[in-house]
């Protein structure tokens, strides 16, 4: 099933909840972040249903706020979900369900489609993710003491997991 790019967004949200979600189970292994309406959304939580309402609200809030900048693809290969600009292309041949729409959004991390392509997860965060973390950290600058902010900004996102083994190990720590 595919939905044309001009499909109203409420159809897409409905698709998330009524068509896509029941198939998810607990099998989503990798995380994605999407920025919608100024809110960072954990796509893995979207997929497991925890943030469906948040996601829906953000999606709705983003409507009409800007010229569409990219195409959102959501799909599933077996039990693995993928979401992102490239996800549609990666999944279109194998997906049981694919929705697309032109929306103003930004994909922050696109790990799931790395799986879809059959290549290892990214060891390093994308530029977009780094910028997002730094922007988030910076947003606290004037909300805590200078000494605390120095410590906070040195600690936050200061280390990186190395290979796949550790990434798997710490995914649910």
């Amino acid at each position: 099933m595919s939905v044309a790019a001009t499909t109203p967004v409420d159809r897409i949200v409905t698709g998330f909840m009524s068509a896509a979600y029941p198939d998810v189970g607990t099998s989503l292994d990798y995380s994605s972040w999407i920025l919608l309406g100024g809110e960072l959304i954990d796509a893995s939580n979207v997929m497991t249903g925890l943030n469906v309402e948040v996601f829906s609200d953000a999606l709705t809030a983003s409507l009409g706020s800007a010229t569409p900048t990219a195409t959102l693809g959501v799909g599933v290969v077996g039990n693995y979900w993928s979401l992102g600009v490239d996800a549609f292309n990666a999944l279109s041949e194998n997906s049981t369900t694919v929705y697309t729409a032109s929306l103003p959004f930004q994909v922050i991390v696109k790990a799931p489609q790395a799986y879809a392509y059959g290549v290892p997860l990214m060891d390093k965060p994308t530029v977009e993710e780094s910028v997002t973390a730094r922007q988030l950290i910076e947003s606290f600058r004037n909300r805590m003491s200078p000494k605390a902010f120095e410590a906070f900004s040195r600690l936050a996102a200061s280390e990186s997991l190395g290979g796949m083994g550790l990434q798997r190990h710490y995914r649910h720590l």
Partner: protein
Amino acid sequence: MTLSVRQFVTGQALPPCLYLDANVLIAFIVRNHQKNIAAIQLVGEAVSSQCEILVSLLALDEVWHSLAEIWGQSETPRKKVTGAMMKQYAPRLTAKTRDILDLDGVIVLPGRADDGRDIVNIVLKLLSASEMRSRDLFHAGYALHRIAGGLATTDDDFEKLALPDARDFAVIKL
């Protein structure tokens, strides 16, 4: 007594006294951790809202071990953490620990030498009432001993916590 479990979302009011599980600190520090952004948001909100942020020695031990494991793996895959590695990483661990302690509102538990026995007694009550692993029981024991309003974690197991007395307690999940 009321145990509430809720997902952390941006802008959510935090309890005035919040225990941080080790996994939250690790998620906060590790940039490609699945919960990194959420952990930065939670810790930032806790620090900036003048929460009492409870960090136990148990949690610090877990953070140290995890960081040593991460650094060790980057040098030699599948290498286990050794005493020699801990000594090698001492300057980096010291810097991380100092930064944690410098966050506004951080209180290290236990606070007094005689708190330990009380914490063990709480953990013993939890042991027979909850289906939880020992390390999680001790994290909960630290939080409940301090009469924290809640515990932040990425771990689903804290949903099984059986409170030993009448109080409101929130498990805030990342």
